[in-house]
């Protein structure tokens, strides 16, 4: 399942997408500790797969929460992307 967490408002589109089919493969769950804002938690989803999801309260504040990690020139060095070996995470901005 492709889970798109986030929103679009007047200022832009901010979606943090998790591909749960890839996420299930992961043994390490390194994203949880890698994120300085602790956005990721591992939970059983509706179909009982243990996958990463975004903390409920943070989903409406992604622009602010992720701001600290995003240098103005591209985001290849984001800690969550670096930590996710199955390449399950992507950002829309």
């Amino acid at each position, binding site marked *: *399942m492709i889970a*798109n967490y986030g929103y679009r408002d*007047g200022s832009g589109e901010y979606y943090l997408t998790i591909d749960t089919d890839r996420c299930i493969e992961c043994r390490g769950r390194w994203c949880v500790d890698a994120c300085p804002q602790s956005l990721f938690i591992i939970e059983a989803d*509706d*179909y009982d797969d243990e996958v990463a999801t975004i903390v409920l309260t943070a989903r409406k504040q992604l622009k602010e929460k992720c701001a600290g990690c995003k240098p103005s020139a591209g985001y290849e060095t984001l800690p969550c992307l670096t930590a996710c070996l199955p390449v399950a995470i992507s950002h829309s901005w």
Partner: protein
Amino acid sequence: MIEEKREFWRWTEKIWRADGVDWKDAASVTVGIDVGSVSSQAVVLTDGRLFAFYSTRTGSNSPDSAKKALGGAMEGTDMTIDDVHYVVGTGYGRVNVPFANRAITEIACHARGANFMVGPSVRTILDMGGQDCKVIRCDDKGKVQNFIMNDKCAAGTGRGMEVIADTLGVPIEDIGVRSFDIDDEPEPVSNVCTVFAKSEATALLKAGWSVNRVLAAYCSAMAERVASLIDRVGVEKDFFITGGIAKNSGVVRRIERRIGVEAVKLPADTNLDPQIAGALGAALFAHALLRRQQKAEAAAGAAA
């Protein structure tokens, strides 16, 4: 102040019950309860088949709303909560169904419910609620494959439409028809943000635009916003629309035009209400989870 506003997605109390079914004959009774920000629904299944559903307004207390919805569905049947074998709670207030055996997200429940209502052909569901807007892609079994939900920004939700309706002094139910009573389709309003769109609407009126034309521009902007949400997950037929704004032809027609796909409609003689999709999906999950639980217990019993 807020209470006096007319609320388009407000559903009057609604009850439906299957004729000639005695729930006491059923082997399983399962319930799904959907507590939304504006309305709450309860669906009761007997042996996995639709027995009753009830829709009511969500009060200020979510657990009470859950109880009220279930009480309404059971009224006049002698059924009590103790007769129910499994309850699944969902919706914006799903954590507030205190007697639920399990909580499932509104995304998964909506997909399951739509699959039941429309059939296995449904693949894309758009739900435009009072305070959120979501698009769900599912398979032929109603399992979610892709979803996107926007509940941060009022633009694209019933509240956003309500603000503009109030600003222009037009009852919500008239917006759709009036938005087509124009000479030519105007450009959409440039501001996404409802707060700024409100000022823009006022400015357009001052510049000589008719109310209908401003409505058209606003519906067009909302349709574009929703369509871009749909673009992110892609649309595949059959396409089904639920939620309050589904009744606003001004937005729905423009969405269909923009994405090039027409939404399926339930047959005119159906007793199913798109409003109950979430609770229905929850009840179906309850039925499946109960059977799984019973199988596990039977296996454990046999092994002992």
